[in-house]
Structures are given as structure tokens and as C-alpha cells.
């Protein structure tokens, strides 16, 4: 087998050195009844050619986003990732290395993470960021748990605009830990709605901007209200490109900013792997989950980087750790930081501006279709529309016109606002795509 270097002669020599007769002698500790003599009932080994053929056949059963006029967002966004990014993250030295536990031979990863942390902190306007979480939704749940540790309180309040998956994930973790999780009713433009729910046991409020309906919210007042009651403000974003154009959570008073980083550097990948971004204020860093790269010096006084503050982590603190996370999203973070380096501030701002303009163009085009109502008052690159028919049916019908026209809200929140679809535009959409969408929608609704 091509991945296995041992030859039959090697194996024989090694068994002799170990002083056993056969490989079975090395498995003596396995209960007899659990020893399987034969092979499991699965196909035998195959060459690259055969495996590639089979997997390509599976891939061919999917419709790539890029082969359609594509307008789905709702937490994952189709952006153009420069070829340089994918080239670099495939370098053996990044791809096939481990968590940088031996810093002297992992300065590459460590410096890149240190730079990543700095970029995330700058982008969110926060003091400090960690080296990545699994994705935006688990980052959100971790933020909630962190808030309970910081405040020693037992309740989390979430807005009705929080991404439904994020809410489900966070609710699950909270409730498993006997933390109350109160989510406000679904609302296109109601982030401030959380204020009334804040009480003396509230650890944090979770608000999202742009929220699930694409609505932008100035959370400054919400943060003030939370702080007045000793609660933290957790700011969630699912489209990190928005931060190139809109006020940062730091600026608006967030204590923890978490979100999905997929938009920068990472492909859609049917939902994963993605990269959770997690940033907070300096004074909260010791309650932060996840790995942290930090600066130090070597024996000669030269600058170098190491993983640090690991007494927060499971491998040191065990059941008292700030999180159970171990393997994170290292390579996705690497992709993120490389893409962000290519953009720089000017590029990011321009990319964000393009996204916003495309979304406006799309909103105008769709609003012009009879029966379509634009629901989102302020948006970045995504908004909700109300349709005259159930959104799921409309979206399905659009498919036949080569258009993937968003996500029906009912897919994520069954039973609520069946006639609403969430629609996103990015720099990858051409004017022709937008026209095709509007035209197809007219036909479908006709």
C-alpha cells in the first residue's frame, strides 16, 4: 500500500527485535472475543486513479455555486479567495505540522498566529484575540460561557436576530450548564429588544450585526444598558467583511466579539471547516477560551513566539479549563491571515464597499419585482425579502432558472415567517447575475 513503507522483510526483522512471533502477539491485551480474524465488510484498497474517479463522480452530483447565479449567505458567504492563499496553506510546513508545542521549530505557525490575533483585534476594535475557534457558532457559545465565568451569573439573553444555528448551539451549551438562555422573538430589526430582558442575573446579552436578516445595528446603547446592569455585551457577526465598512464592535462597547471568519480566505466547503474569531478586552483575557500565541525572547535575547497563558486550557487546567477546545481551526486561520494581508486596510475597505454596492444593486433589482418587499432597513451585503408565496417554493422554482436565490427563513426557523427569504450578494456576483435573478423571480412570481 502506497502509504505504508514497511516491507514484509522489515516486519519480520522488527518482530524478531521485539522478540515476538507474530503481529498477533502484540494484540494479546485485546479480549479474545473482540479480536477479529477477518477483514471488515468494506471494499479493498484502491489506487489513486480509482479513488479519484469515484469521488469525482460524487462531486459531479453536486451543483457548484459558481455554476449558477448565486445569492445564498445566511452565515457562509461566497467570496473570491486569491490563489496565493490556497497555495500557501498547502505548503507542507503549514499543512503537515502540529499545534506549535515546540516553539523553536514552529516559529512559522506561531508568528502567523500572533499576526492573526493582531489582525482580528484590529478588525474588531478589541484588545486581544485568540488563535481561532471551531466556527462562529461555537465561538458564540464559548463567549456566553465565558461571560458566566466573568460575571458569575446564570442567564444569557440573545436577540431575535441572532443566527438561528448560533442560538441553538449556544442554548444547548448554556442549558447543559444550567444557564438560562432567553432569546427574544424573531425580529428583522429588533436587536435592542434584548435591553428589557437584562436583569441582575444576566451575564451577557448577545446581539448580532449585521444580524441574520442582514440588519445593521448600532449596539452602543445596548452595551451601555448591559454594562449598567453589570452584564457583558457579546457582539456576533457572521460576515466579517462587513467590518471593513461598518463600525467595529470595540467602538460600540462590546466586551466580547465573536464571529465567523469564513468569508476571508476560506471556501464554502458545504459548511466546514470554517474559522471562529474570538476577541475580547485585555482585562478578560484570562477567562478567554482557546490558544494564544504570545511574544517572548530566546536564550540569546532574540524575539520569538510561543503558545502562552495555557493555564486556561484543558491540557493544564483539565476540568477547570476555560474551554474543552484542543484542535482548533489553525489552517483556516492561516488562510484568513494571508488573505487579510493581501487585502490590507485599503483592500478590505474596497472589498466591503463592493459587497455593499452589489447588495444595493440586488436590493433595488429585487424590489422592482412585483410582489417582493425588502424588509431590511440597513444592511451590508445581505437582506431579507418578503415574497407573495412560501419562500421555499420560490427558491426551488428559481433553481430551474439557474439561480440560487437565497435561503428560505423556514429552513432555519420552521414555522416563522414562511414567506421570507434571506438573500446575499458579494463581489462574485456580476450585474448579469443580478439581472438574471430579478428576471427569474419575475417569472416565478408571475
Amino acid at each position: 500500500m502506497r502509504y505504508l513503507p514497511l516491507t514484509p522483510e522489515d516486519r519480520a526483522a522488527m518482530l524478531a527485535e521485539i522478540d515476538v512471533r507474530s503481529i498477533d502477539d502484540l494484540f494479546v491485551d485485546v479480549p479474545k472475543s473482540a479480536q477479529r480474524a477477518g477483514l471488515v465488510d468494506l471494499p479493498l484498497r484502491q489506487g489513486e486513479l480509482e479513488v479519484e474517479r469515484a469521488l469525482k463522480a460524487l462531486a459531479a452530483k453536486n451543483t457548484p455555486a459558481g455554476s449558477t447565479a448565486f445569492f445564498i449567505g445566511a452565515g457562509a458567504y461566497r467570496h473570491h479567495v486569491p490563489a496565493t492563499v490556497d497555495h500557501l496553506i498547502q505548503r507542507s510546513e503549514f499543512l503537515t505540522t502540529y499545534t506549535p508545542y515546540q516553539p523553536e521549530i514552529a516559529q512559522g505557525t506561531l508568528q502567523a498566529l500572533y499576526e492573526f490575533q493582531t489582525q482580528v483585534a484590529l478588525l474588531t476594535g478589541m484588545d486581544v484575540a485568540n488563535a481561532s475557534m471551531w466556527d462562529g457558532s461555537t465561538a458564540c457559545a464559548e463567549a456566553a460561557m465565558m461571560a458566566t465565568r466573568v460575571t458569575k451569573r446564570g442567564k444569557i439573553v440573545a436577540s431575535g436576530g441572532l443566527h438561528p444555528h448560533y442560538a441553538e448551539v449556544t442554548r444547548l451549551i448554556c442549558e447543559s450548564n444550567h444557564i438560562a438562555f432567553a432569546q427574544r422573538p424573531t425580529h428583522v430589526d429588533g436587536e435592542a429588544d434584548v435591553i428589557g430582558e437584562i436583569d441582575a442575573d444576566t451575564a451577557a446579552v448577545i446581539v448580532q450585526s449585521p444580524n441574520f436578516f442582514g440588519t445593521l445595528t448600532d449596539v452602543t446603547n445596548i452595551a451601555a444598558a448591559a454594562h449598567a446592569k453589570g452584564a457583558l455585551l457579546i457582539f456576533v457577526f457572521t460576515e466579517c467583511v462587513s467590518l471593513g465598512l461598518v463600525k467595529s464592535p470595540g467602538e460600540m462597547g462590546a466586551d466580547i466579539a465573536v464571529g465567523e471568519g469564513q468569508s476571508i480566505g476560506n471556501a464554502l466547503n458545504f459548511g466546514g471547516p470554517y474559522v471562529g474569531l474570538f476577541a475580547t478586552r485585555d482585562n478578560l483575557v484570562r477567562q478567554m477560551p482557546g490558544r494564544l500565541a504570545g511574544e517572548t525572547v530566546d536564550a540569546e535575547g532574540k524575539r520569538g513566539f510561543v503558545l502562552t497563558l495555557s493555564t486556561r486550557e484543558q491540557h493544564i487546567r483539565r476540568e477547570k479549563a476555560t474551554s474543552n477546545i484542543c484542535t482548533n481551526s489553525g489552517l483556516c486561520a492561516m488562510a484568513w491571515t494571508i488573505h487579510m494581508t493581501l487585502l490590507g486596510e485599503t483592500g478590505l475597505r474596497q472589498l466591503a464597499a463592493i459587497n455593499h454596492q452589489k447588495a444595493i444593486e440586488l436590493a433595488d433589482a429585487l424590489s422592482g419585482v412585483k410582489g417582493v418587499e425588502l424588509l431590511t432597513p440597513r444592511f451590508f451585503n445581505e437582506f431579507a425579502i418578503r415574497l407573495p408565496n412560501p419562500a421555499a417554493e420560490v427558491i426551488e422554482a428559481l433553481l430551474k432558472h439557474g439561480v440560487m436565490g437565497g435561503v428560505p427563513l423556514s429552513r432555519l426557523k420552521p414555522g416563522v415567517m414562511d414567506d421570507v427569504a434571506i438573500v446575499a450578494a458579494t463581489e462574485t456576483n456580476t450585474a448579469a447575475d443580478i439581472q438574471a435573478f430579478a428576471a427569474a423571480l419575475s417569472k416565478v412570481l408571475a
Partner: protein
Amino acid sequence: MTQLRSTRGAAGDYAVETTVSGSRAMLQAAWLLFEYGATDRMGVDLAAPGNRPDRLGGLARNEPIGLPGLSEPETMRHYVRLSQRNYAIDLGLFPLGSCTMKHNPRLNERMARLDGFADIHPLQPQSTVQGALELIDQLAHWLTTLTGMPAVAMSPKAGAHGELCGMLAIRQALIARGEDKIRTRVLVPSAAHGTNPATAAACGFSVDEVPGTEDGRVDVAALKAKLGPDVAAVMVTNPNTCGLFERDVKEIADAIHAAGGYFYCDGANYNAIVGRVRPGDLGVDAMHINLHKTFSTPHGGGGPGAGPTVLSEALAPYAPTPFVVRDGEGFKLIEHVEGEAGEAFGRMVAFHGQMGMFTRALSYMMSHGADGLRQVAEDAVLNANYVLARLKRKFDAPFAAAGPCMHEALLSDVTLKAKGLETVDLAKALIDEGYHPMTVYFPLVVHGAMLIEPTETESKAELDRFCDVMLALAERVEAGEVDFFKTSPRFTPVRRLDETRAARQPVLRWRRGRNDDPARQAAE
């Protein structure tokens, strides 16, 4: 200016010549991005945005962000230079015990990047992602068949997330039985990986540590003594973190079941038995599988991974959403707790899990097949035992008498301590010899532990070279060459790093002026 100097006082007396550039031949100087990038530089060309009036509702960003950019050629160099400061499997042996650093086939990378897998959105209409759902179903079939378990939850993002999945399924089962308020204690062996107690705590259980025996296994008697009506589960790693198979695994399973609890098995070491032993035959209720260990998806410098979790009949009904079911000729993704997923404990993550890792893992499994995977386990175990056989002559192998090891060999620091050295010193000397050190100081139950996992993708010749080096270093230990070890490594881009300083005075990000390169500051 150029100068000859001997700066290595602390590091031994090695005359060194510095260079003007700060580079040394192919080892290029690597500045921080922030030290030479600029906010108005970039490595992209973007179309002009339109100019319709914005719809930001007054939320436009006014303040500068401060994100530096670089042109494309500079970006390329920045990261290529950084990359060369990393060790990698593709460079040499990476025998990190418990971490399973095996060869990462590039076929898998190619497959994961097919447009049909990489360029599909998790919320596309299901009719347009039938191939993706089929792939998940196929992978699930491989995993359940290999493990002999009836069900698998595919969405966990990593091993620890899989642990969470298993423990939440257990909690849900207890809720169904009305015992969740009663059964709140989870037994975890002292040798367990940190994620086990952390996970148990992360979903609200209390953790009770079970001691180990002299021979590196769970103390079954002690475990039984701790069982009671408040015990929800035991979390046992098998093969365990000492690299041994828990001989009494069935007894443990029977005992916990008899006591009304569940058996969570940490499957991080499943690579030692894949294709040969089925956890389903051992009484396991839940076990995560690190696709990034057993099934070769790359570790990427820390992640991403994937932790599909197989579940017993008892727990299968509580598997989280989403999951894939067959639907006539095609496949359907069940995304909500209601309806077909009625008893599901909920959702662990946005969307449907680590598709990119699924593709890679399935590509690996299909390449190996049932025969190859069994060989994987056998060669992994053979390689570890071979290393153990050679090294135990000069190192203390605390459990060498306790039966063969599985996929990893465990040594202690006894011989080092005797000479005033520590495990870390040996590790740093290994670095100079061109090897990534083994896992050190884990498991905690062995003093100065060195856990060596060669994996099946190493050749005998490579193992022999590694053992030769280890034995040669052992001789230097015997000779008491303390200074040599304490000043290692010396051939690395940076010398031994001050981790204490990093933790005491944390500098977790760059800030202009506040933390420029100390060497540079000195030079100025």
C-alpha cells in the same frame, strides 16, 4: 555593520558571525507583517465599487482600522519565509504521542478542492448537493462498519467536540430516563487527556478522577468502588494514553452499565486498532473518532480536524442534528430537532460539520480499503513496539513489563533526572538532530513522560535512525553532559524560548511602538 561576535554565552561557546541583512543564506529574516506592511498597500486588484448612496444607516466606519497590507510578491515571501521556520511531517519523523502525525496524502487535498465539494454552500437546496450528502452517508457507513456501532453523529468539529457530542447524548438519555438531575458525576482516569475532564465539565457534569494501576491501566477496582447511582458515565481512553490496551475494558463496560451509567470511550487512539478491533464489541456507548488522527486529515498547525462520534443503540436516538438519511434513491438532511429527529439532543454547530475533512478522510479510507486499514493498525503497533524494544535498553520504560504497547511507546525521565536533566532537555537536543520531539509531560501519571508515536507511515530505516539518535543522546546523558542539553537547541532559527516570561508578561498582539523587535531596539 557586519561584526564578528560571540553572543552565545548562555548557549555555550559557539563563535558566530552575524550578517548585515539578518538573513543567513536560505534562512531569511522574517519581520512582523506590521513592521513593514502599510494600510495603503495591497496584494489584490478589485473592481471599482458602484456609487449608489449607502444603506448603512449611519453605521459607516470612520476610524482607521490599522490593518497592514502587502503586495502579492511580498505576501508570498512573508509566508514562505515563515513556513521554513516550521518543522513538518513532510520533513521528517514527528512522533508526537497521542497526536498521530502520519503522512497526509495529497490526493485527499486534491479531492477536497473539487468544485463539487469546495464550492457548495451548506444551505443550497438539498437537491443540488446530493453528492455531498451521499459522501457523508458513505463516510458514516465506513465509520459504523469499522467500529461496529449502529450510528454516528457527523457534525462534531474536532475530537473534543466529539466528546461533547457523546456526553450530551448521554445527558439526553438521562433526561429521557428522568435521571439527569441525579446522575451528575463522570469518572475520568487520572491518565486521561485534558479534554475528557474539560468536556465533562463543559456540559455540566462533575468530574471524579479514577487512579491508575502500577502497570499503566485504569484501576478497575477503584473505578468500581466509585460507581453509584449518581454516576452518569465513565470516560476511558482505549488504547489508553499510556499506549496500552485496557485489558479489562469489557469489565469496565459491564460495571458502568450495571450501575446505570454509560461508557464513553475516547477514540483518539483508534488508529491502533482500526480494522482489527471493533469498539462496538467492547461495550462502548459513544466514541469520537479524530479524522485528523486515524484518517490522516492534516493537522494544519493546530486544526481543523473533525470528530464524528459513533453511538450505541442506547444513545443513537439522541444523536444531534443535522444528520443524513436515505430518501428513496437520494438523501435527505434532517436539520431540526422536531419531526424525524424528535429525540435529538440539539445542534452542536452551525451547518453540517467538517465537509472538507470528510472528503479527505473518505479518500484515505477508500485508498486503504478494509485490508489497508487493518495493516495501518498493525504497522502502527509494530513500529511503536520496535521503538520501545530498542529504547528501553537505555531509557526507563515504566510499563514495558505490562505487555506490548499499542501504537505508542512511553518512557519516563528517570534516567534523565539522575543526571540533573529533564525531559525538555532531551526534547530540545532531539530538535537539533532533525527530529520533532515526542509528546512530553503527558500523560501526567508518568514523571517527565515521553510518549512516542511513530505511526505506520514511517519506514524501519527512519525508526532506526531515530533510535540511534535517542541512544546516542542517552549516552550523553550518562556522560553527564548537562551543558550540552541545557543549551540545546542550537541549530534552530531561534534558541530556547522563555515561556515563563511569555506567561508572566503576556504580549498577545503587536502594537506600534510598544513591542518592536527587542533585538532591533537594542541595535538602534
